[in-house]
């Protein structure tokens, strides 16, 4: 890919990639030059001066920072001359004179670049006898991050990450000279969805994360690499534990997905695993109507009997399955087997009525990769607010646009995270996306410029549901349009972590394992409808909470009509509180298996800690249940299920062994399969009155998040956002109570004003505790 050139490195000729920075080239050639401020994923600033080396030039040999100089043919470099050593030791001494040297009580001690480099390159003792610089410490700069300005060496990694990578300029240098400090502005806490990355890249213990502070010493930690289960981006993580409790997640730098970054929900969202409310024993509903602890065999017997009774009385089609999108592929395949083969029902869905057509997700036209963003000339985002739903994909788009110079077109009903760097922003009214698409495709009127921007390929199109009141077919129609754009790559996105893997394992109506066609069945909407009208009587939930997650907001009511419900889960939630049998499952980092991200990239997830109490991997629970229902499975362990997965055409190259052997952390792409997505036409429904945009926020009231003490407090109360014109015509001021009434209910919430909405459109965040249904047409009135 890149040209190779030869430089003289400490007297030996070495071949390096042309154009890379000297510090990187030297490292590639085996010579580590010490550094603090340089980070391979950020632009160099040459501030800490630790990486000084000597470079010979026409004007003689000069000390220069190796992080700021690209290599050139024939360059002569000295990294270990007396001058270099003295300069580096001098810089280290400067950095240490005001550093508190409190390593024994510092979280970073033991994995601290400053400590390590002082040992390797630094002087043995200090010549500084004056009093050190003092600041109040530590100070909270957000709910998750603490700052110790005395430990800080002012490398600006946190500042640059927040400004340049995350686009959240909230942590900055203040004052100057000897009094320079990193801090936030007075009334602006470090409320970034990406704040944890600054803790990870801080080269000292200046930034610490509240969930990890004083919990462990680095040398006590055990670690495995795995995949974040927070969303479908599939960020590579290092999971770290002590005494069988997960204490932190660190981002692992892989080119394909996360570049080392994580969002805070992914990074800190592990504490629910050790929450006191975690299910640890099977529960069975007693004659008193309450759930009681039971043995595994009693609970499984009861579950099998209940399901068999419904099949006997009403047929296989009276049983349905929901969930599996948060499970591993192996668990999902076991669920598919139980439902479709052992029980024999075609009604199963991993999605919750909030995603997209499974065929679109599995077989989008011109399906692309996240990495295609690196070469994109234009990016089209017509889908969710990526910052709220797929945060690290948001960072990758930001990089493509702000750093690499791609153009950006954002289509969304209200201001989204990417608007500030977009070249074109298009707003529309939920329900009228189809008409907008037709006008955009034709380049009508004010859309002519946007349309011509999209002719600048390669185009990467990220399509999905902008909100839950939107027709899911719209994203398919957009994908069809986008696929025709020059050198198009299409990413059809939906949030839930292993939804793509679950679909590939056949957890979708009409689709079997390996992206092949199957008998048609009910999707989540149909299953909820069936529960309501009594045609579905028995239900198996695998890590699914339709009462909270189904956009209608009324699935809980439908669920209460079921005759028999089995739930396999980590917690009691609104959906299984009334279940007949609740079986405790192992969760993240408690099972081994694979997950498939939104690109179809399969990665290994690994086990680090035992599941609590009697909780078991879902595939084992499902196999035992199948056994009681007469299913004769040859394989039930995750490992044997993995072998079965490898027989599916798209997964032919995938094996645990190949993934464990190492694929550069990039996993293996599962591509191909029989199913074809036919692009739908989408009709436009112009409702009367107000149109509701029901969008997701990162910190919603999902069960796992609410069980996580660090994240639960970050959830906001629901607020209805109105266009200022609508607010004034309704006589509503910010903070007033309004009643919003929709297809499935009404709610009274505070009002806020959002000028980015089109007049006539209101925005309500989904799953913050209020629900009015998922129809776009709503009415709003002031509560007096």
């Amino acid at each position: 890919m890149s040209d190779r050139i030869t430089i003289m490195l400490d007297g030996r000729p070495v071949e390096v990639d042309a154009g890379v920075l000297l510090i990187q080239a030297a490292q590639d050639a085996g010579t580590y030059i010490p550094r603090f401020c340089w980070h391979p994923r950020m632009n160099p600033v040459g501030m800490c001066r630790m990486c000084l080396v000597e470079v010979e030039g026409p004007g003689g040999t000069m000390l220069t920072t190796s992080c700021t100089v690209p290599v050139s043919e024939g360059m002569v470099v000295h990294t270990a001359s007396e001058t270099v050593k003295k300069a580096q030791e001098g810089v280290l001494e400067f950095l240490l004179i005001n550093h508190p040297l409190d390593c024994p009580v510092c979280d970073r001690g033991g994995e601290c670049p400053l400590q390590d480099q002082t040992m390797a390159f630094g002087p043995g003792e200090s010549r500084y006898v004056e009093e050190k610089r003092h600041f109040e410490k530590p100070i909270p700069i957000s709910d998750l991050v603490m700052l110790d300005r005395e430990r800080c060496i002012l490398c600006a990694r946190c500042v640059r990450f927040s400004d340049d990578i995350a686009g959240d300029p909230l942590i900055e240098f203040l004052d100057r000279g000897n009094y320079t400090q990193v801090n936030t502005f007075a009334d602006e806490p470090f409320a970034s969805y990406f704040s944890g990355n600054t803790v990870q890249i801080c080269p000292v213990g200046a930034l610490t994360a509240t969930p990890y502070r004083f919990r462990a010493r680095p040398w006590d930690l055990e670690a495995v690499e795995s995949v974040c289960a927070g969303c479908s981006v599939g960020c590579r993580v290092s999971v770290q534990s002590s005494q069988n409790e997960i204490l932190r997640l660190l981002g692992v730098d892989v080119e394909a997905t996360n570049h080392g970054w994580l969002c805070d929900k992914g990074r800190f969202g592990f504490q629910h695993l050790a929450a006191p409310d975690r299910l640890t024993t099977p529960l069975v509903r007693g004659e008193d109507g309450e759930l009681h602890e039971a043995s595994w065999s009693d609970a499984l017997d009861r579950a099998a009997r209940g399901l068999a009774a419904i099949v006997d009385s009403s047929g296989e089609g009276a049983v349905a399955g929901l969930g599996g999108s948060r499970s591993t592929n192996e668990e999902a395949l076991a669920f598919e087997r139980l439902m479709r083969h052992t029980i024999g029902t075609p009604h199963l869905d991993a999605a919750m009525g909030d995603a997209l057509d499974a065929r679109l997700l599995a077989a989008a036209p011109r399906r692309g990769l996240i990495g295609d963003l690196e070469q994109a000339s234009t990016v089209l985002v017509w889908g969710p607010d990526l910052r709220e739903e797929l945060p690290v994909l948001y960072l990758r788009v930001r990089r493509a646009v702000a750093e690499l110079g791609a153009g950006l077109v954002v289509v969304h009903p209200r201001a989204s995270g990417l608007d500030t760097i977009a070249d074109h922003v298009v707003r529309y009214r939920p329900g009228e996306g189809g008409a907008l698409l037709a006008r955009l495709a034709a380049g009508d009127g004010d859309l002519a410029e946007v349309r011509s921007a999209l002719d600048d390929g390669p185009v990467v199109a990220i399509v999905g549901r902008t909100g839950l009141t939107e027709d899911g077919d719209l994203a398919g129609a957009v994908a069809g349009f986008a696929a025709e754009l020059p050198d198009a790559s299409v990413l059809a996105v939906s949030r839930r972590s292993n939804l793509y893997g679950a679909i590939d394992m056949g957890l979708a109506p009409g689709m079997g394992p390996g992206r092949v066609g199957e008998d048609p069945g009910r999707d989540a909407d149909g299953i909820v409808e069936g529960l309501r009208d009594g045609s579905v009587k028995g239900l198996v939930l695998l890590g699914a909470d339709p009462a909270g997650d189904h956009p209608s907001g009324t699935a809980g009511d439908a669920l209460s009509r079921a005759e028999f419900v089995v739930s396999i889960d980590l917690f009691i939630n609104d959906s299984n509180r009334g279940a007949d049998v609740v079986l405790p499952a192992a969760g993240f980092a408690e099972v081994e298996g694979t997950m498939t991200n939104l690109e179809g990239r399969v990665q290994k997830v690994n086990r680090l800690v035992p599941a609590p109490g009697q909780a078991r991997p879902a595939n084992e629970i499902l196999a035992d249940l199948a056994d009681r229902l007469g299913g004769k499975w040859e394989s039930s362990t995750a490992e044997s299920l993995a072998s079965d997965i490898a027989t599916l055409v798209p997964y032919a190259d995938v094996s645990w062994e190949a993934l464990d052997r190492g694929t550069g952390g990039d996993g293996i792409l599962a591509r191909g399969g029989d199913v074809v997505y036919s692009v739908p036409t989408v009709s436009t429904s112009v409702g009367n009155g107000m149109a509701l945009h029901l969008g997701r926020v990162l910190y919603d009231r999902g069960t796992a998040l609410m069980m996580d003490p660090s994240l639960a407090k970050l959830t906001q109360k629901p607020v209805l956002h109105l266009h200022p014109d609508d607010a004034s015509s309704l006589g509503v001021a910010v903070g007033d109570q309004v009643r919003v009434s929709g297809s499935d209910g009404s709610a009274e919430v505070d009002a806020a004003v959002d000028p980015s909405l089109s007049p006539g459109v209101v925005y309500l965040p989904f799953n913050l505790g209020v629900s009015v249904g998922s129809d776009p047409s709503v009415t709003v009135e002031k509560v007096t």
Partner: protein
Amino acid sequence: MTDRILTVRMEAHPADSNTLDRYEATGGYATLRKALVEMSPEQIRDEVKAANLRGRGGAGFPAGVKWGFLAPAEPRYLVINADESEPGTFKDRQLLERDPHQLIEGIVLSSYALGVNHAFIYIRGEYARPARRVQRAVEEAYDAGYLGENILDSGLALDVMVHLGAGAYICGEETALLNSLEGRRGEPRLKPPFPAVEGLYAKPTIVNNVETISNIPWIIANGGSAYDAIGPEGSRGTRIFSLSGHVARPGNYEVVMGMTWREMIYQIGGGIRDGNELKCWIPGGASAPWFTPAVLDEPVTLDDAGRLGSMLGSGGIVVMDETTDVVAAALSIVKFFAHESCGQCTPCREGATWLERILQRIVTGHGREADIGLLLDVCDNISPGLRWPPAQTTICPLGPSLVSPITSIMTHFRSEVEAMIRHAEPAGV
């Protein structure tokens, strides 16, 4: 032969040399009027190059050569560095206050030569009166058609914006100035890229000192070769020196370079106050290593100053007599630089305050024997080898600048430092 270029008008008309009327009445803007008709931009550039005009901000880089580096991308900017903050230097203040139209005419000619339509004058925050006068002059020039959309019906468009700094010495460093002008922290940028390629708003930008550009009208009026005929080779033209300290007649003096330091101090400066003996002097602003009477008969030129291990820098000459406590003087300068360090790079941020504290200890009678070696070694870690011209471990020259006073006293007055330490009280008791 011409011996004054820049200060003729203000000397002759002290009451109103800053006004447009006086400027026009004394031949002002005639050069511009003529040049816009008769000369091409290239011809103006050629004259400036032929003049061998060296920059008056401190580094002494040939202005015509700098102009030649300007990249072709558009838009391009001209920025006048009027952030005169070097201790002992106050020449630009006089040019701004007393003859702002001379500068503006220079700006218009330069902008025409460089293909610039937007120029900025970045004035030191403390320079309130100069800024007011320049602002008024800019407004007068707009009204009279010397600035604006179609200057003197030539088709040339130029807007000039006056921007007041916020009180940071480092913003005199051209890339820190550009950051400040953009609304960022006043911190020097990494070079390359140099401003001529990527400057203000990442566009090609020429940053020139006030005095440098104030010379342009004369050069275009009289020709580059006429300018090149004034003064010794390498130090062409006149130069305004700011004489201060223990001289009998401190002030700004525009002179042709090449006289000896003895003439500079004893004739121009009127000798040492109270008939005292000369001890040493700073030849070119607080950043410059000091000279002692041993070089009194050396010529005052850029190249000779460099050969002798210092520089003419910003033209600020600070004279110290026999009564001077040189350690206290060095402390005073180091304290200034520590206060003005931007703080972005480690050796300057940490080293400056450390050096200040060691000197403070010595001056207050708590020095230690080891402090001399420590001072020099800390200096060496900022400016390796302590040589001239200086090497640096820092991003910008502020690092080696703060080292200059210390190496100066260690080179010339080490016995005084040692004596101070020897008579010290035991520290920390």
